[in-house]
């Protein structure tokens, strides 16, 4: 029945080419020996070598990594709690507002969220920097975790939990020994999604940052505004490689695609 017509294959192939070509070109040009980014000067690792001596860039990478680790972990905990509340608790007081606050950040333009969070931090007069970015990221990305975990909670069989409890297992123990292992793949991909989102974010970090906390996207952005540079090609290629290895490993380990079926769940934001 499912025969691939020329039209279907063609649109898929064109679509994939459109998706991959720019990235492939970027990676190839990161090995360009010439300082002129538009002229091919032969293969070279020169720009990677220069990166190692770029202390500011390494510093930023380290800050970004710590923020991403912390906020992804916090977001996974908060997002999972929210998913459990939404899926399992039926109606509770304030549910409409709650689900509104979960779904709104998914589509809310980042400039608005960033500005709002900054004004909050100014209003309560905290020093801006590492921690304010971490809190801002946690808030935004926990909603993505909720969507991922929620679709898993909806699709699984509750009779296992019921059996455990019928046999006298207390709720908390049931959750830890039955529910948690069952939703673990969703937690893992939720965490990864959260981690990537935090690594990626430019707009919200720009608003909520302070002295001493220049994340990698902020630094790359300020360099890119001045034009294309071979060093930036190199650092982008490294980031692409890290992400690609991580995703391929994850999709081999878990049934990664199942989680994404729900819609946007398998996707980081723009």
């Amino acid at each position: 029945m499912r025969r691939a017509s020329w039209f279907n294959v063609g649109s898929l192939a064109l679509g994939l080419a459109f998706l991959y070509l720019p990235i492939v070109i970027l990676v190839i040009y990161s090995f360009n020996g010439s300082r002129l980014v538009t002229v091919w000067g032969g293969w070279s690792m020169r720009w990677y070598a220069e990166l190692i001596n770029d202390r500011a860039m390494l510093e930023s990478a380290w800050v970004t990594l710590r923020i991403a680790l912390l906020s992804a972990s916090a977001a996974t905990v908060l997002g999972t709690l929210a998913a459990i509340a939404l899926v399992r608790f039926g109606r509770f007081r304030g549910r409409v507002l709650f689900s509104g606050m979960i779904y709104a950040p998914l589509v809310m333009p980042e400039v608005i969220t960033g500005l709002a969070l900054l004004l909050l931090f100014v209003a309560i007069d905290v020093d801006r920097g590492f921690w304010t970015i971490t809190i801002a990221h946690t808030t935004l990305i926990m909603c993505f975790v909720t969507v991922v975990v929620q679709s898993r909670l909806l699709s699984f069989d509750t009779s296992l939990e019921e059996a455990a409890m019928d046999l006298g297992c207390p709720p908390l123990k049931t959750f830890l020994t039955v529910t948690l292992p069952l939703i673990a793949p969703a937690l893992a991909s939720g965490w990864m999604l959260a981690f990537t989102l935090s690594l990626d974010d430019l707009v919200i970090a720009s608003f909520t940052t302070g002295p001493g906390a220049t994340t990698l996207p902020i630094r790359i952005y300020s360099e890119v505004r001045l034009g294309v540079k071979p060093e930036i090609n190199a650092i982008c290629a490294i980031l692409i490689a890290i992400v690609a290895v991580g995703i391929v490993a994850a999709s081999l380990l878990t049934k990664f695609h199942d989680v994404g079926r729900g819609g946007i769940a398998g996707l980081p934001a723009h």
Partner: protein
Amino acid sequence: MHGAMTKRGEHRSWGERLIVLVPYLWLTAFFLLPFLIVLKISLSHTAIAQPPYAPVFDPAAGWSGVVEAVSALSFENYALLGSDWLYLASYLKSLEIAAGSTLLLLLIGFPIAYGMARAPRRWQPVIFVLVVLPFWTSFLIRIYAWINILQRDGLLNQLLLALRIVDEPPAWLSTDTAVYIGIVYTYLPFMVLPIYATLEKMDQTLLEAAADLGCPNWKAFWLVTLPLSRPGVMAGTLLCFIPIVGEFVIPDLLGSSQTMMIGQTLWAEFFANKDWPVASAVAVVLLCLLVVPIVVYEQMQTRDLAGGR
């Protein structure tokens, strides 16, 4: 903890309350409250100070402070937005680009989603990962990759010159075309995946029935497939349109500086002009423009949740 155990209206244990309360309080503090502050500051006067606005009220003054605050509210920032053509042009530009690129995304995304859904079953997971994979890489990098291609002596112009399609290298960067390319490139999976999700769930026997009854393929597509894919098309459209209206990075890096999109205007007011009250007013008006699509999107999500999978 579990719905099966807890009937509606029964008392919940403390553990269950905590499960709701912790994320609830977090979102109230860091998502809802900030918007109220934006609203408040949009009604403040601009001041040359740090922070650069005159607070509308002083919480220490108690109730009299609140009364005073209400009388001190100022709509001058909103009046400025209405009177200066720059802001109106900026909002219109954003809506125009968002509408145009959402339409393009639909035209490009639908055939891809259709191709994915009609691909052999065992290939679908692989194709799915292939479509999603590029979008795990930083979107800043993806936009940057396009600068490489679109700049004046970039690859696109080199190709066009080599093929003798053009004699003079045309400027791609700093044009609306570049913005459209960047947006379509960045948002494509947000259009493709929801459509794919509905097409994939579609009952294939409906098409067989149509074919058995002598309905030509294109007509079956028009009468069966297209109407059934509506939820996915709606979700994809909203998922793209809403954030594109407020997009900042793509027009900033690829677009021209002549007519700015509203995200850029907000950014400029905030970072360059340091006019926080006007930036807040820009944000409030933008939110008002988007509130209807956001509510529609939320309703769809909630309905999805209620209907299970």
